[in-house]
């Protein structure tokens, strides 16, 4: 079934890149959700993740660096019947486009944001990013990264995201389940996906033995989610937070129910509006 979400182009990432796992997980998730390719829009930013739109057989908008989220917000508001998935990287979402991410979370816009977090600027050949751990040598930090990384999960929770999860690109089955839940979530969903970059920063060895899957956690418990986000040694995978609140697009009730109308032109009579100016 997953072949329906294949553009037929052979993916081109480095051998061992985490993007292969994320692509496989998204395709499988969409297939298992029974979605039609034409009902999905993938919006990607700039980075190695950006090639997702080349391979994922759904409608797509390959945006400029850092602005995938606001483009996706526009798509969702204009046609809420579309399932809108954002593929973005740690540079795209957490550095240049950070404010958009937080505000989309705050508004609870019904988009699913999948952050390909390889903790490095990879496409630009290996500079430190906002999630690169302190001390890591990169091409822009040859003596070791002097900056502290921030905690994207904590940030997402603080911003009001109603669905916050963490996945691992090497665990496709688990990630697929997270994506299915995120795509069907009412409102804003974010999955921070740990994505090893074998060329510039392969975290596989570093995180081995630290990852564990959440069990028995109540995703409606905000404080428990905060505590999980604060864990330093162990890295929890799974849905940390999941609550239901009205989505932003539901505010536009005058439009939200007739997306089909968008295609047809509205010829508006201004007579009533003009009374204000008389």
């Amino acid at each position, binding site marked *: 079934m997953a072949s329906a979400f294949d553009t037929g182009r052979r993916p081109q990432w480095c051998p061992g890149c985490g993007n292969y796992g994320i692509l496989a997980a998204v395709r499988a998730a969409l297939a298992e959700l029974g979605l039609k390719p034409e009902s999905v829009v993938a919006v990607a930013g700039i980075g190695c993740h950006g090639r997702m739109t080349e391979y994922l057989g759904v409608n*797509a908008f390959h945006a*400029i660096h850092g602005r995938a989220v606001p483009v996706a917000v526009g798509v969702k508001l204009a046609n809420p019947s579309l399932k809108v998935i954002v593929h973005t990287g740690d540079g795209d979402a957490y550095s240049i486009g950070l404010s958009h991410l937080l505000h989309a979370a705050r508004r609870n816009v019904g988009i699913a944001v999948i952050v390909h977090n390889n903790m490095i600027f990879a496409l630009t050949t290996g500079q430190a990013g906002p999630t690169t751990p302190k001390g890591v040598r990169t091409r822009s930090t040859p003596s070791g990264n002097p900056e502290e990384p921030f905690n994207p999960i904590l940030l997402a929770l603080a911003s009001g995201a109603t669905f916050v999860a963490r996945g691992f690109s090497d665990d496709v089955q688990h990630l697929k389940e997270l994506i299915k839940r995120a795509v069907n979530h009412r409102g804003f969903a974010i999955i921070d996906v740990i994505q090893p970059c074998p060329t510039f920063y392969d975290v596989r060895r570093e995180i081995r033995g630290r990852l564990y899957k959440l069990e028995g956690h109540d995703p409606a418990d905000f404080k428990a989610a905060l505590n999980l986000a604060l864990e330093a040694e162990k890295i929890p995978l799974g849905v940390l937070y999941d609550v239901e609140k009205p989505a932003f697009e539901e505010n536009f009730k005058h439009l939200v129910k007739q997306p089909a109308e968008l295609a047809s032109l509205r010829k508006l009579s201004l007579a009533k509006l003009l009374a204000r100016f008389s």
Partner: protein
Amino acid sequence: MAAKELAVLVGGPAGSGVFATGAIAARALLYHGYSVFATNEYPSTIRGGHQWVLVRGRLGENVYAHCRSIDALLALDAETIRLHEARLGGRGVVVCDESVAKGLCSNARIVALGLREVVEKAGAPPVAVNVAGLSALLAMMGARLEPILEAVKSYYRGRERLAELNVRVATMAYELGVKLEALSSLKLKYEPRGGRLLLDGNSAVALGALAGGMSFFAAYPITPASPILHFLAEVQEEVGAIVVQAECELAAINMAVGAAYAGARAVVATSGPGFSLMAEALGEAAMTETPIVVVNVQRAGPSTGLPTHTAQGDLRFAIHASHGEFPRVVLAPGDPVEAYQLTCEALNLAWRYQVPVILLTDKYLGESYWTIDGLPRVEPDEGSIIVGEAPAGYARYRVTDDGVSPMLLPGTRGARVYANANEHDEEGFVTVDPETVRRMQEKRFRKLRMLRALAEERGVKVYGSGRVALLVWGSTKMVALEALRELEGVKLVQVVWLEPFPAQSLGRELEGCRVLVAENNATGQLASLVREHLLREPDSLLLRYDGRQLEPEEIVEFVRGGRGG
């Protein structure tokens, strides 16, 4: 002597209701049958700092712009008298409350009235001294009470308690003014004409966008463009549009690009600083061939500049904004009716040719009011989207003879709609193949052929005739039209399409004429386009760059040879 013309200035500290007074005065004159123009000036503060509104009326003919000399000054504080008294014409009067006049040197022009007393007696809040002063002043000039009360009610529509209190204040203060009629040399006439509107440029843009089928609007608050956001936010449910206040201008334009990709006719409005931020996504819209309309209500820069003052300094920037090369359209309306028509046209052009369209207005156009007889009927045209089933072998960026590829909306059965901000092939896939890159660039630029033809056809407007051509763009047109009343042998030439530039039609209009250029910027940006496209050096330039629009009197002096160079 009946007043065929008059100019009243209302001034006071921010927060004293100066704008409300101006709006009511403008309506009161309109209801008397005058053609009205109103403009304002204010600092970037909410309380304190001086602000004023100038209301100018003319009977029987249009009034296009402001003027230096005023006939009456309504002073809500002593500072107003100090700042504006010199503008009073020979028999002009100042009306103020007794408390304002106290401490000033005795001055025969000053009519100090017990306005506060009236407000107290009426049981209205102290700020209502503005309406009291206006009503008394208009009464002194022989105004009728009924149109004044209508103006008050119209201004406070939907705020019934305030309307009622201010009607009471206006009625009582009117009695004060009537007794002093002899003090004013102005005698207002009452020749009501129905059906006319008072329209500002910002509202005109909003109305034009709605008429053009806009269903998505996003903006970040910025002076002087915010009134467009306010108006659309207020009417969004009534008109069935989505109005979003974005977290920044980057977000606003990217949301609009996303919405347009999904099929909504989308508009964003901002001023220079926000337009700078939007430059990035202009290229994105161009490369993805997503239709988008960007309104830049220019203010004086650079940087934060004079955030509440007017300028025409963004012309070159609008033409070139964003990196790389792509076709775009830049339009500059000169008055509210043009602002309305061109905003609708901007949407139509964007959706027909799948290019970004930039509308350049300015603070003077956006926040001044003009009397208009009505708005012409304009409507959205079909554009270049295919609605319904996808044609076999659909490709979003199909290379076509005219450069316009058929646009499908995501959600169309059987179609994959792939928009790509990277260079791409016909189906939208990323490419670096030199042959494909060249073909796609040429495809996009082929649209310019049709756009250039439209620019030549619609891009230049001419008023009057003569051997002297006064060349303007944007709201300076209105100042020049006002100046034209005093000038002979001058033809006013307005460039409406700035990009593509209507070089041939402009060249024809300027042929054999002495060319004078008047602009609201420091470097003569329109003049530079004339040099570039027509290889012609204008004979003289009048440039104003102090945050104020040119005055009609200045233009008259300039054309007569007194200024500029």
